């Protein structure tokens, strides 16, 4: 079974985000870049499938050279090889252009399953997975928390949580699955794994290598433009529910949830 994992590098969620002087981008100087946490779930699930069915796990990343470190991290976790789509012309591309480049990098590879994170934790758009599936003309199974590939490797049964219920979906393979939190606990890159990863192949591809026209990529080709970035509003102080007894407090809480928060 051959599995592809798409990987994005994002600012560490612990990073302090500052908005740049242009008002539409963030200051990247002091940012620590990490593998998108949802993509880590994808890597882990791919490795589990490989352990069960054999085959190869290929990690496909896109972005500047620094993304190599995240691909090598996936290789250290146990993936077999990496592809980095990197080209100056990609800088500032929107989700659709990104998906086009990734789909072009994947289309000639052999695959049964493709994993992407359900969204990147930076832009929070959740578009690339769906667009890649569309461009490759394969089914997309989104926000998945459980993956069960049939013994014969031809179909997959997945679970998606919806409003307290679970939707069980079956699909033919190949298919693209977007990983949701709860799918698994990603393993750590072990020390022996890190040493082995040094020798694993990692190929770089430019837009030209993929037969793509550079004018369709980058900031100028964006269909979706960012007009303004603003920091989230400062969190307001919490409210302490008053009451003499637990019963009184519970009644007061229910009343507040109903009348003030309007969630009940």
């Amino acid at each position, binding site marked *: 079974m051959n599995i592809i994992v798409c990987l994005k590098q994002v600012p560490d969620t612990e990073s302090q985000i500052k908005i740049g002087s242009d008002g539409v981008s963030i200051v990247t100087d002091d940012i620590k870049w*990490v593998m998108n946490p949802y993509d880590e779930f994808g890597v882990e699930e791919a490795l589990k499938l490989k352990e069960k069915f054999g085959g190869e796990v290929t990690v496909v990343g896109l972005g500047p050279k620094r993304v*190599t*470190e995240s691909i*090598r*991290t996936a290789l*250290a976790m146990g993936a077999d090889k990496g592809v980095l789509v990197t080209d100056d012309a990609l800088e500032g591309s929107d989700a659709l252009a990104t998906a086009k480049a990734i789909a072009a990098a994947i289309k000639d590879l052999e695959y049964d399953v493709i994993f992407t994170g359900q969204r990147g934790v930076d832009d929070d758009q959740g578009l690339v997975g769906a667009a890649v599936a569309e461009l490759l003309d394969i089914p997309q199974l989104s926000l998945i928390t459980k993956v069960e590939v049939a013994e014969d490797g031809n179909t997959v049964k997945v679970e998606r949580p919806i409003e307290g219920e679970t939707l069980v979906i079956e699909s033919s393979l190949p298919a693209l699955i977007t990983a949701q939190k709860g799918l698994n606990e990603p393993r*750590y*890159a*072990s*020390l*022996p*794994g*890190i*040493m082995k*990863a*040094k020798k694993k192949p990692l190929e770089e591809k430019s837009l030209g290598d993929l037969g793509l026209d550079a004018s369709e990529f980058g900031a100028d080709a964006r269909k979706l433009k960012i007009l303004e970035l603003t920091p989230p509003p400062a969190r307001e102080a919490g409210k302490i529910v008053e009451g003499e007894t637990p019963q009184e407090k519970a009644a007061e809480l229910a009343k507040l949830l109903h009348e003030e928060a309007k969630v009940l």
Partner: protein
Amino acid sequence: MDFSLSMEQEILRNSVRDFAENEIKPVARELDEKETFSYDTMRKMAALGLFGMFVSEKYGGQGMDYISYAIATEEIARVDGSHAATVAAGNSLGIGPLYYFGSEEQKQKYLPKLCSGEALWGFGLTEPDAGSDASNSKTTAVLDGDQWVINGSKIFITNASTKLTSGVTSLCRTGTREDGRPELSCILVEAGTPGFEAREMHGKLMWRASNTSELYFDDCRVPDENMLGPRGNGFHQMMQTLDGGRLSIGAMGLGGAQGCYDLALKYSRERTQFGKPISNFQVNAFKLADMALEIECARLILYKACWLRDQQKPFGKEAAMAKLHCSEVMYRCANHAVQLHGGYGLMKEYDVERFYRDQKLLEIGEGTSEVQRIVISRLIGAL
């Protein structure tokens, strides 16, 4: 000159940091309080590959360089001193002497299980009456036919009485040299050998979740082939082991200092007094600035010492400097961190309290700060 780490070293740091934050931090306080060595976290550290870091793959090690070893130790120490002690002692003191001085048979026999972390090994140097004066070892070994008969005791030996411990390296007097001074040799004693007992020590101020032992040898007989390297080389072997060990103690000081600083910076930005975060008061901001500065300098001297070792250049002076400086930097950082936490810093609920205690060992173990100053003084030609 290039100050950047390799990509593997960066990945290693991220991975060990995540591991320490997720697997060690949540249990560290309770293990400290109960003074318990955790077999669960030991198993997880072993699975990550934290043992045998600088040992060749041939014996089951990871074949990494000393900078990588320092980084991994640093990242564990950033979260907890006890676990870092288990790793540092396991690698430098347990595995080190066997790897550097053992015969091929001894390496094949012991290293694979020590490198996989299925087993631990103790380093028996210190005795009740031989601390800084380590060559004054009173433990004796007398050759009887093809067996050494060992009598004596050792104290403060890390990792020597866990359920996983498969043996210890013990420094013994094996005779008298031609110049009249004692002949000292290292002898390997396997756990379970009759006449050998390792007893866990309790009541420690610090490193309470690491395993510390007293060793007793009472007519303990081991075969002649358990001699480590040539007879009479024991003291030299022990001192060479400590040169390497100092790098890992330095890494513990550096990581601990970083841990103190990270906690202090976070707390100081959140804690409000007189209507603003306490980090906005210059008196506090300067403490944090000093900590950041000292940590940066400590990291430079430690990594340089590791780099010298990796380049097979003399590193003894820099190792002593790194051990001395990193442990003293952690002393100052722990002190500032508790001060910045105010009353809360005195409570076990806050990790800086544990860092404050754990720090003290670093100025005492593997050669006191005073001994490091003697080593440096001799190496610069002052003594």
